[in-house]
């Protein structure tokens, strides 16, 4: 994994850490183990996993957009809802295989995000946040007025009718697993690429990045489109498992609220953060959601306290305390010991 940038100059540029090598092996084993779920696990577990996978994809993409791209949106539920409805329309009206329709739905969502970005990008900072919320409301109200997709009360995904239950559950599970892994891998790969470096530069200073030749607008647009793709994917997967969709469920701001919670608690601007956040969210949800309104009050207070007191979240604190980096995106300089030979591999 180590790249030798200027080997004979007495130093290496290291892009991997010990934790990332061990973690990588562990992650592969875990993914392989999870992939066997449909052969032996309880259908209830699989449903819970699917739901959390959708939250992870959504949170991962919100993190890319806000934590790395600096575009704090409260309107990503627009793309989640559109992904769900794209799946429904393709499956119910055009006879597209619903499983095949999942990635197509995400792509269609990304296409819609292109004109939407032209509107949203006219606003910055806090105005961008609320402006994107308005845009998502426009989609919700528009779809609530289309009777072909059930209007305000929604409709069922009838395209799955002919598919046997066990097959449907297994394929949905595998798609959710693949989607979650792919979203983490995509963000990781993107941040390690040249464009990722450009994005980090923009986050630190737009003006400085622009003056170094970074195309700020194109990079931000790219991130916005990828985030829309991911949100659309999460929506298509969620409603594939849910079998029923309504405008209020698809376009509720709660999606973004939970996404923000997951990212902020876990650690914004890190890849490990949303993964830890979604595990924590799952546990809180499992043990405390019976408290209803008090549970939500607690989530709100927790988000406030973490933002003010621990702005780097749980993972930010841990990685600094123990110097742990499972997904290193930075380049580290490793100086060679002067008395040792510099030959490698």
């Amino acid at each position, binding site marked *: 994994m180590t790249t030798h940038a200027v080997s004979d100059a007495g130093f290496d540029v290291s892009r991997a850490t010990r934790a990332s090598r061990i973690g990588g092996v562990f992650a592969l084993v875990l993914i392989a183990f999870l992939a066997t779920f449909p052969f032996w696990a309880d259908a209830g577990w699989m449903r819970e996993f699917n739901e959390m996978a959708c939250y992870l994809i959504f949170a991962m993409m919100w993190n890319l957009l*806000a934590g790395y791209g*600096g575009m*704090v949106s*409260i309107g990503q539920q627009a793309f989640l809802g559109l992904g769900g409805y794209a799946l429904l329309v393709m499956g119910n009206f055009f006879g597209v295989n619903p499983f095949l329709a999942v990635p197509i739905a995400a792509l269609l969502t990304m296409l819609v995000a292109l004109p939407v970005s032209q*509107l949203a990008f*006219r*606003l910055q*900072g*806090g*105005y961008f*946040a*609320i*402006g994107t*919320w*308005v*845009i998502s*409301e*426009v989609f919700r*109200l*528009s779809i*609530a*007025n289309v009777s072909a997709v059930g209007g305000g009360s929604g409709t069922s995904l009838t395209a799955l009718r002919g598919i046997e239950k066990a097959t449907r559950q297994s394929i949905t599970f595998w798609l959710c697993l693949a989607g979650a892994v792919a979203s983490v891998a995509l963000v990781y790969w993107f941040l390690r690429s040249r464009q990722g470096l450009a994005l980090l530069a923009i986050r630190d200073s737009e003006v400085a990045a622009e003056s170094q030749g970074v195309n700020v607008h194109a990079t931000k647009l790219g991130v916005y489109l990828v985030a829309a793709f991911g949100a659309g994917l999460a929506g298509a997967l969620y409603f594939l498992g849910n079998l029923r969709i309504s405008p209020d469920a698809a376009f509720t*701001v709660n999606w973004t*609220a939970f996404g*923000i919670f997951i990212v*902020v608690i876990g650690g*914004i601007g890190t890849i490990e953060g949303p993964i830890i956040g979604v595990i924590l969210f799952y546990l809180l949800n499992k043990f405390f959601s019976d408290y209803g*309104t*008090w549970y*939500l*009050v607690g*989530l*709100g*207070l*927790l*988000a*406030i306290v973490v*933002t*003010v007191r621990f*702005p780097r979240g749980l993972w930010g604190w841990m990685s600094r305390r123990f110097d742990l980096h499972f997904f290193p995106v930075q380049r580290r300089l490793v100086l060679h010991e002067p008395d040792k030979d510099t030959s490698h591999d």
Partner: protein
Amino acid sequence: MLGWIDTILQGVLLGGLYALFAMGQSLMFGVMRLTNTAHGDFIILAAFGAFSLSLAFGLPPAAAPWLAMGLLLPIAFGAGYGLQRVLLNHTLGRDPLPSLVVTFGLAIVIQNLLQETYSADPRSIESGGLNTASVALGGGLAVGTLPLLIFLVAVGMAIGMQMLFDRTPIGRAFRAVSDDKDAAELMGLDHRHVYALATGIAFLLVAVAGTLHGMKTTVSPADGPALLLYAFEAVIIGGMGSFYGTLAGGIILGVTQAVGFRFDPGWGIWFGHIVFLMMLVVRPSGLFPKTR
């Protein structure tokens, strides 16, 4: 024809209420670039606060809401000042994320506490028949007394806020910290105190808006986000930094929604949002921008 005039008139009056929602937000935007995503929820909180206060003293319904509003004002100012000083000042900076997350968290807390206290049932503040009284304008036209009163309050507030901003020492302090916080600090202004005063005044506006909103119609704990969006749209349509602009923005939004509702009840709100988005395309800085 008369029907359309009536619709537009109702829209203008509705716009007065939206402008009232928006002015507090406009002030906080203008002074410290703070996007308060809980703004609508604070209005609803104020409405419920006024609802409880108006029932607390056994006064006749014609007087109770006004006394409630009077009691609510100092509470609101104190709450706004304290909230800014203790919490929101720590979230300000170049990065908009902390203030957005904290106010978003507050919104969720307020909504759920209201739901826990008052249940999800819609409530309305009893005003002794004021909400059903109307004033005849001749020619078969009539407007509700309360909506007309709200509109006049909104106009008065817009004038008052603009004068406060342009002509008073506190307004000068607002403009100074808005232009350059550090330079203002060097001139002896404590920006934390000035910010807290701005939020205190914004919360006075919220208290007035919440009480009047609760008298005019029913409120329920989940109504806040919709009000936030209307307020935000009014501010952006009108242009940053001008309270007259915010008033105009509210009226444009109100008329659009009223016309939309007349066209088809399912699309009224939608039309309002579309006009806002069209404004972004045509004139992103709003109608009467003063600051950026």
